[in-house]
């Protein structure tokens, strides 16, 4: 009872409810397709939000981890015939280790140097994926075999929908647990003031590295899922623009708000689909949305609306 009354639990239950009833409103597989992509992006954003929102560290290179996870699955499954689940885990482990190695030097950087460092890291990954054409198919990409676990295949969009929906719930649950753990409290201290946190005995560097690794692994797993789901991969999954998209999702939805990340992912994934008729204006609207939210709603959609709602209730 006590657990249920916590706002996070309420949030996770409402998210589960939305996921459960949404299929009733989706007319055909095209709509499922869009919603599945929302889910995949949301998984990345929930992880990235831990980094940006809770530790205040920006990453302009997270698409690189997404791309690595995706290509790990693509290459191991489609070329070397590994079972998809094993490839997914192998990719996540590889990305986790890579992120761990990179975390120390990267997390030492501050402000714009951190932006440059993560940006450079993402771009180098994307260039490698572009250039190693024999493995990755180069700029024009590679096909990826279907996902399967012990011979079972999520054949249609509905099965994929449940799979991604379930994983999103797990991701949100993990993130909430991390935030409400002692580690999480330390993280928030880091965001507040690093000096104060370290004086209070928080091993700042260790926590920052931990979050960096966790967020990279979330991205990698989402990347693997995406690879199998879309059946085709291009290096643009790992490019600078995709990294920016991910950061924008987090910031638009609301930094330091797990559900904000989900909302941000939903808004920015749906936006281009809604704008297809005005496709000419897509970039214009996208850029303007980024600027306007950051200028007028610096805390993002969810926290801003939340406090507006609270004020209204009073």
């Amino acid at each position, binding site marked *: 009872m006590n657990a249920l009354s916590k706002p996070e639990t309420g949030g996770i239950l409402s998210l589960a409810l939305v996921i459960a009833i949404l299929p009733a409103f989706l007319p055909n597989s095209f709509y499922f397709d869009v919603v599945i992509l929302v889910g995949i992006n949301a998984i990345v954003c929930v992880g990235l939000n831990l980094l940006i929102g809770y530790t205040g560290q920006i990453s302009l290179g997270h698409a690189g981890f997404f791309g690595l996870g995706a290509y790990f699955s693509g290459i191991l499954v489609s070329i070397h015939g590994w079972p998809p689940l094993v490839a997914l885990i192998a990719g996540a482990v590889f990305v986790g280790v890579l992120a761990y190695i990179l975390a120390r030097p990267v997390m030492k950087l501050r402000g714009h140097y951190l932006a440059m460092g993560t940006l*450079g890291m993402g771009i180098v990954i994307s260039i490698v994926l572009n250039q190693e054409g024999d493995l990755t198919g180069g700029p024009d990409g590679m096909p990826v075999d279907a996902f399967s676990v012990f011979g079972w295949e999520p054949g249609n969009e509905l099965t994929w929908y449940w799979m991604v929906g379930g994983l999103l719930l797990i991701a949100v649950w993990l993130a909430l647990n991390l935030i409400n753990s002692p580690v999480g409290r330390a993280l928030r201290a880091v965001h507040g003031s690093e000096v104060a946190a370290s004086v209070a005995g928080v091993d700042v560097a260790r926590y920052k590295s931990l979050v960096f690794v966790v967020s990279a692994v979330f991205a990698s797993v989402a990347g693997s899922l995406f690879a199998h789901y879309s059946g085709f991969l291009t290096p643009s999954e790992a490019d600078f623009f995709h990294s*920016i998209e991910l950061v924008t999702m987090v910031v638009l939805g609301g930094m330091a708000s797990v559900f904000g990340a989900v909302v941000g992912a939903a808004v920015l994934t749906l936006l281009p689909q809604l704008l297809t008729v005005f496709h000419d204006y897509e970039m214009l609207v996208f850029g303007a949305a980024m600027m306007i939210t950051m200028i007028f709603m610096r805390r993002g959609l969810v926290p801003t609306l939340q406090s507006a709602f609270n004020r209204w209730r009073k």
Partner: protein
Amino acid sequence: MFAEFLQFLFSGITVGAIYALVGLGFAIIYNASNVINFAQGEFVMLGGMGTVFFIGLGLPMPLAVLLAVSLTVIVGFGLERFAVEPARDAPIVTLIIITIGASIFLRGAAQLVWDRNFHSVASFSGSDPIMIGGASILPQSLWILGCTVVIVIALHMFFNHSMTGKSIIATSHNPLAAKLMGINTSMVLLMSFGLSALLGASAGILIAPISLTYTGVGIMLGLKGFCAAVLGGLGKPMGAIAGGLLVGISEAMTAGYISSAYKDAVAFIIILAVLFLMPNGLFGGRGTERV
């Protein structure tokens, strides 16, 4: 053998000078405001595409260039006034997203007003290569180098001998003190964006005859310019120039002697190495953390 080396050096210096101009733009804005303007690359695009547009209207080249530069400077002013100024006190992450948003916005607007195709601009003085020591260099490359030198000297004079230039420097050292001394810091900010736009547009116009121009041309040039600026230690104009040339030459040598495939990665690999070993850039001094 030497001719080959010379050839790579020529193309390295040519593109390096462009990176230097873009990097200089980053440095000037950073100096005045502590903001990294990710829309710097779009200034480069606006310069090139603007020139194509005005020439298309039937205007003579010099006038088209002048109009394209003016257009870019106006956009620079607008960017400062409507996007950066309202968020001056925001954290770095927020400012980064605002300027990236601005760059996407400007690119989208350019694609809407113009198009997404490649366009060529005629070389300033013919395209017959000049042979030096068995390697060829284009007259346009000489234009690029010449203009870069002139711009750098002019900037140097501006910062050291003009009142506006000196107030920009003063503001970068201590905004509050500058303000108390009666310097209009908000004007200084506006000026720095205008100046950066001017540099970016010049770079875009100079390179257009060599590499063609299109609405997406600013992305890579902007990022490489950022590399140049960081490599030189953010906010150090001369560092940015050195950084630009270093990136350009390393790229050309990598393409020539190692692998053309990883040419674009060179700038970023250098930057990662430098950041990991010297977190404040090659020529950088103190840290930049704002508490």
